[in-house]
């Protein structure tokens, strides 16, 4: 991004009554263009809000952070440089340097300990993104430049340990590797600017660093599922021609790139990403191949597998139905451009990616891209349950469909158990994740930032109801969240979401039943707003109201009691 583009993005940002979103950029140097670039990057990610970037007096970074009031902030970015460890590392300070690396390392260690303590505290309440020193160290050592000095090595060791600890405390550390890919180290420092204006970065480096800080503060929503081709993607060779033993993914067969792809898919699957296969092959042969013990992506990580000779777009349709997710949350990988075109025509929202079969250099970029598309800052217990619970959801749907005359009998025999909690826990990442990724059973589709979520739950009268579910088909984990506020006007539900994996179990009914009981009110108001995709929530409210819901809408307890179907789950309230 050019500086003028950044300023023009900020100039075009919504003003007036638009809610503002406040961020703080902390640095030991004058933030200057870094602040403009960062504000513009965040503004692009938050188009419905007006981003405001606050900065403080430059100088002592630790002191600035210690004095920082975090109330009202949506996030904090910290751009560290070497002088933040010890001012003697800066080009703007003269006065002689100690040649004693031990003393410099001790001083740096003390500075990092101070920063760590404060950053860990802030990260408990807010998203924090940190970039470690990205400029070259001034030549301080007496050893030649091609040899790493003990001071350099010691500083990097201290920084690595510091970064690991603040990351464990919840802060997000900018990847030095990614920064190196985007911003070559020789093009980062601007000594003239540093001496003149105390701003040490070239504009391109400031722009790239700002982009990475913004990605850490406001990461894009990860995709939910990946549908992969088999021949030419998951393995090398054509199953129908080469046979089960003839397909390969190892060095011996010059097919290692497919093994690397399998490894990444396994990691993604284990972090909760849904992985399915769509292949034009004979189903029996595919089952046999997926049974090979040396597959790096075990067959049980693939769900579902669509193997037939029909169009792949039909396979994708069935997979999306089995997952119950929209095509815009999914990527499709195939080595054939023709297959990708056929699928893209039928599913315009789907991201279609070509598997780079013959180009090893492109493979690394491809794997990096998958990591970016599906990666998430942390993996939750629910992520691990997702695949199995989808399988059980299918069993539930099919069983209910098989006995349409007696869905109650099926639910009664499901041995369902709900854990409900009214304990407010603003730091529960799963609750916020559900609010921000659920589309179908979602009261109004509103996405909420971490800071806004915490602020909403900190209001007097605010409540949060979270539900975890399991039945004889297996656990689903935390699958429902209901949040709102009780004041003199009554009970107002502002967010109500239910994972699509948990449909058809009447969990939503039970949540409302407990909400009425908990507050003992004759009526509950809902901030309902129709969205293109929240039909299931709309139908649920319509069923209870006996009419289409208004926006917003109110539900009387007597109407709920009259129209609520029988509920069979056992309930434990914590």
């Amino acid at each position, binding site marked *: 991004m050019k*500086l003028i583009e950044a*300023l023009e993005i900020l*100039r075009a940002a919504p003003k007036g009554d638009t809610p503002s979103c406040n961020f703080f950029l902390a640095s030991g140097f004058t933030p200057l263009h870094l602040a403009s670039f960062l504000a513009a990057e965040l503004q692009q990610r938050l188009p419905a809000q007006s981003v405001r970037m606050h900065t403080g007096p430059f100088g002592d970074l630790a002191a600035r952070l210690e004095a920082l009031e975090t109330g009202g902030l949506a996030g904090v970015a910290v751009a560290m440089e070497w002088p933040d460890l010890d001012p003697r590392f800066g080009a703007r300070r003269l006065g002689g340097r100690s040649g004693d690396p031990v003393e410099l390392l001790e001083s740096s260690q003390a500075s990092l300990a101070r920063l760590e303590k404060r950053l860990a505290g802030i990260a408990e309440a807010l998203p924090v993104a940190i970039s470690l020193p990205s400029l070259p160290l001034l030549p301080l050592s007496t050893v030649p430049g091609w040899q790493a000095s003990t001071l350099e090595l010691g500083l990097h060791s201290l920084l690595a340990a510091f970064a690991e600890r603040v990351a464990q405390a919840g802060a997000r550390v900018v990847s030095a590797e990614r920064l190196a890919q985007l911003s070559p180290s020789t093009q980062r420092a601007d000594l003239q600017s540093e001496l003149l204006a105390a701003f040490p970065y070239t504009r391109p480096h400031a722009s790239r660093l700002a982009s990475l800080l913004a990605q850490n503060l406001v990461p894009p929503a990860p995709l939910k599922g990946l549908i992969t081709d088999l021949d030419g993607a998951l393995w090398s060779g054509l199953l129908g021609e080469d046979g089960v033993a003839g397909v390969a993914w190892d060095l011996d067969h010059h097919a290692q790139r497919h093994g690397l792809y399998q490894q990444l898919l396994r990691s993604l699957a284990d972090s909760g990403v849904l992985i399915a296969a769509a292949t034009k092959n004979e189903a029996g042969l595919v089952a046999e191949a997926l049974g090979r013990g040396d597959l790096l992506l075990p067959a049980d990580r693939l769900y579902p597998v669509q193997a037939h000779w029909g169009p792949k777009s039909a396979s994708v349709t069935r997979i999306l139905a089995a997952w119950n997710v929209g095509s815009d949350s999914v990527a499709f990988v195939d080595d054939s451009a023709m297959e990708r075109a056929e699928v893209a025509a039928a599913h315009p929202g789907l991201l279609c990616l070509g598997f780079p079969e013959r180009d090893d250099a492109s493979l690394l970029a491809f794997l990096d891209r998958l990591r970016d598309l599906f990666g998430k800052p942390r993996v939750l217990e629910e992520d691990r349950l997702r695949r199995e619970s989808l399988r059980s959801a299918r069993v539930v749907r099919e069983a209910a469909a098989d006995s349409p005359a007696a869905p109650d009998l099926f639910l009664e025999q499901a041995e369902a158990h709900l854990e409900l909690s009214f304990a407010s826990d603003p730091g529960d990442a799963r609750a916020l994740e559900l609010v921000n990724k659920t589309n179908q059973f979602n009261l109004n589709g509103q996405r909420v930032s971490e800071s806004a979520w915490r602020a909403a739950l900190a209001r007097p009268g605010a409540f949060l109801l979270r539900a975890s579910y399991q039945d004889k088909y297996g656990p689903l984990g935390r699958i429902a969240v209901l949040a709102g506020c009780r004041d003199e006007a009554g009970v107002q539900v502002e967010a109500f979401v239910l994972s699509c994996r948990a449909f058809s179990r009447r969990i939503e009914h039970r949540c409302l039943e407990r909400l009425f009981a908990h507050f003992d009110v004759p009526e509950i108001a809902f901030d309902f707003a129709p969205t293109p995709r929240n039909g299931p929530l709309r139908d649920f409210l319509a069923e209870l109201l006996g009419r289409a819901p208004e926006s917003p809408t109110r539900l009387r307890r007597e109407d709920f009691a009259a129209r609520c179907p029988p509920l069979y789950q056992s309930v434990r309230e914590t």
Partner: protein
Amino acid sequence: MDQTRARLLRCFAAVFPGLSETALVSASLGQVEGWDSVATITLLSLVEEEFGVEFQPEDLERQTSFARILDHLATRGHA
């Protein structure tokens, strides 16, 4: 010259978004509210980026108006 003037106007408008075109053309340090040292650095950075020129530290004190910067650009081949 008209094209150079238009490109320079875009730079000034990015730094002083509240000013009309007439005000931007006659803008100078001390006369425009908000034109401080940070605005000078930002402005000269934008001009560097837009025209591919480089300013020296002493230019911070010399390039103090729209007209002066336009003249400076003319001496650098942006007539």
